[in-house]
């Protein structure tokens, strides 16, 4: 069966510090991968998605970046965190070509607090 791992679960970082959140998927090949952010009182906002190694699409201009160095690894990064980067970050995957109604499968999320 497929599983998705996301870490760390919680993170407190000072403003201006770098960020690296990691997500890995097991039990499937060539998944589509996504990073979402959930701010308090708001829905989930898509930040990045990837349909293959090295292929990253950005949905929202910001000081965050994403990389996919391996087929089932997706990394969210920042060189210098802002206060506004605080939130709950969710990694997700879906089956490539899995059918039009293929859902997203989410990790457990990372609570990021920028102080």
């Amino acid at each position, binding site marked *: 069966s497929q599983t998705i791992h996301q870490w760390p679960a919680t993170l407190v970082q000072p403003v201006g510090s770098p960020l690296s959140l990691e997500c890995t998927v097991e039990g499937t090949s060539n998944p*589509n991968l*996504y990073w*979402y952010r959930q701010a308090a*009182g*708001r*829905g*989930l*906002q*898509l930040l990045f*998605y990837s*349909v293959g190694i090295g292929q990253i699409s950005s*949905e929202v201009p910001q000081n965050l970046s994403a990389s996919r160095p391996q087929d089932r690894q997706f990394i969210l990064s920042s060189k210098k965190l802002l206060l506004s980067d605080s939130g*709950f970050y*969710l990694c*997700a995957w*879906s089956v490539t*070509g899995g059918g*039009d*109604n*293929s*859902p*997203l*499968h*989410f990790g*457990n*999320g990372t*609570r990021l607090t920028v102080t």
Partner: protein
Amino acid sequence: AQTVTQSQPEMSVQEAETVTLSCTYDTSESNYYLFWYKQPPSRQMILVIRQEAYKQQNATENRFSVNFQKAAKSFSLKISDSQLGDTAMYFCAFRRGGIGNEKLTFGTGTRLTIIP
């Protein structure tokens, strides 16, 4: 661009009662898919139910069912015989049809509390 609107930020209902959560969406697409996700206090996002726009029959999963009104662009979730474990944030989500369009657009969510 597609938008998803959930007009009920919070709802509460007595255990064993039925509750309906509202969702409307805006799109010019004819081929699309709709989803309801549940996010309990653990923050894990869990798929509750999905609906293909080309299907007239409303989707049902045990105690969960939808009322899909395509012309009105409405996609409400009905929870029957509500249980304490149904307490969660519920998100409505939209996806365009076609391979390569797996991105979901989410509403802002409805916080549902089941009262014992």
